[in-house]
């Protein structure tokens, strides 16, 4: 059990436009409370990392924010009424339709977002993520790294304002992880806000503007990596996490 005072340290985010404001979110499965009355804000122009160990409640939180898991209690406010049109989602399992090629999966998901893709645009997007050479292959036959990259392309097909990625680099080798981190940074540079979950503290330090640390369904820290480490006098986020969850 841990005993820590919840701390919010945000530098420079106070005047940013809120894209998502979730308050007192709670979700239980049978007798187990998976997300325990948490508040989550995602601001425009930020890369926010939701970190925690397996079972911390990250995927469930993301599911609630995406509207695919109904919360038991709490509210979620979006900056737009049509939030599903403005949010791109990548799920942990990176699912693709069986029997469809890479190209056809992109066309299908584009159709779900009401977007029509030209051949040139598809080729451009695939080329940008180094997947042009596999566009005719069945999507489920791609390597894990290729599937992760393809899943991120799917999140951007409709030019969303916010992209939510659930463990985008899980299971990848260091090169693959570096590629995903660069992709996330490129998304931010192109004006897309990002919320991603991870259990890799080093990755988070390299990429995130702000960190939401989860443990046993609760948010135990919220702030920029530097400010959190400075406040708790730790060398890195991993050390901070261990300290907060001792």
């Amino acid at each position, binding site marked *: 059990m841990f005993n820590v005072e919840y701390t919010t340290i945000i530098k420079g985010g106070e005047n940013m436009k809120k894209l998502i404001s979730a308050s007192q979110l709670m979700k239980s*499965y049978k007798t187990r409370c998976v997300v325990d009355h948490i508040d989550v804000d995602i601001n425009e122009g930020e890369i926010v990392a939701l970190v925690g160990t397996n079972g911390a409640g990250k995927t469930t939180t993301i599911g609630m924010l*995406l*509207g*695919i*898991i109904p919360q038991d209690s709490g509210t979620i406010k979006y900056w737009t009424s*049509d939030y*599903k*049109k403005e*949010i791109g*989602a990548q*799920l942990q*399992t990176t*699912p*693709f*339709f*069986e*029997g*469809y090629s890479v190209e*056809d999966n992109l*066309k*299908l*998901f*584009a*159709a*779900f*977002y*009401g977007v*029509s893709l030209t051949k040139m645009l598809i080729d451009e997007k695939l080329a940008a993520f180094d997947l042009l050479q596999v566009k005719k292959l069945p999507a*489920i036959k791609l390597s894990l790294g290729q599937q992760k990259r393809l899943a991120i392309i*799917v999140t951007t097909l409709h030019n969303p304002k916010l992209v939510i990625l659930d463990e985008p680099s899980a299971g990848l080798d260091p090169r693959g992880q570096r590629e995903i981190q660069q992709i996330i940074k490129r998304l931010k540079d192109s004006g897309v806000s990002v919320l991603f979950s991870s259990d890799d503290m080093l990755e988070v330090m390299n990429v995130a503007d702000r960190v939401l640390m989860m443990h046993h369904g609760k948010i135990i820290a919220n702030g920029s990596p530097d400010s959190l480490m400075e406040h708790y006098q730790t060398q890195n986020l991993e050390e901070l996490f261990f300290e907060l969850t001792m």
Partner: protein
Amino acid sequence: MKAVFVLNLKSSLKDMYLLFWSILMPFAAIIALRLFVPNYAENYVEGIIAVSVFFYSFMTTAFIALSQRKRGVYNLLHATPMPLWKYIISISSSWAIVAIILSYIVLLFSIVINRLDVSFNIFLYMTPIILIASLSFVFFSFFLSSLVKNEGHLSMTANVLMIPMLLCSNAFFTMEKSPNFIQYISLINPFEWFLNGIKAAFINNFSTWGESLLLLIGCLALTLIISLKTFKYSDQ
């Protein structure tokens, strides 16, 4: 919707393994009947067409839907603005078109093998019957795939539903001498309505054809509602 329909149709028509077995089994049945019971072979054509459409539209699509759910793609669909009814209707329509194509292939083969004398009208009258029936069966397959947890459960549950529907119909033997309760079941059996519609198309019996079509349209509406209400995006 159009893009979803076209993409799924393209994918379904490229599945050579599935198409092969969906065509091979009816072909084998037609040839076997011609060889061993040549005097009655043409009496079974409607039944063979109906069964092949039924198996493709119900059993096959239920497994596809279950597989997609277990992969998690329906969860991702849930995160998009695509309304569920649009997705289900688009996908189901493409599968129904494949079912129609399969039935035409089986019918043409049967015409050749049994040297049947049929008019072009048969295609005209059979098509709406097969379209409506296969759509109903596909909608029902979504419902079935939402009930079960895995392929084993699906196989068992599908058999529990399909076998009585086949046996309580006039597909391969007459219901006239069957027990009363079997005959009552056949009256409310959608597969029997489908079969009657195909048989009516063969003999230009417009009254029975129209009756079957109306019953199947009612079945279509009911199964669409059931599939939408019971659809599960994930196993959780």
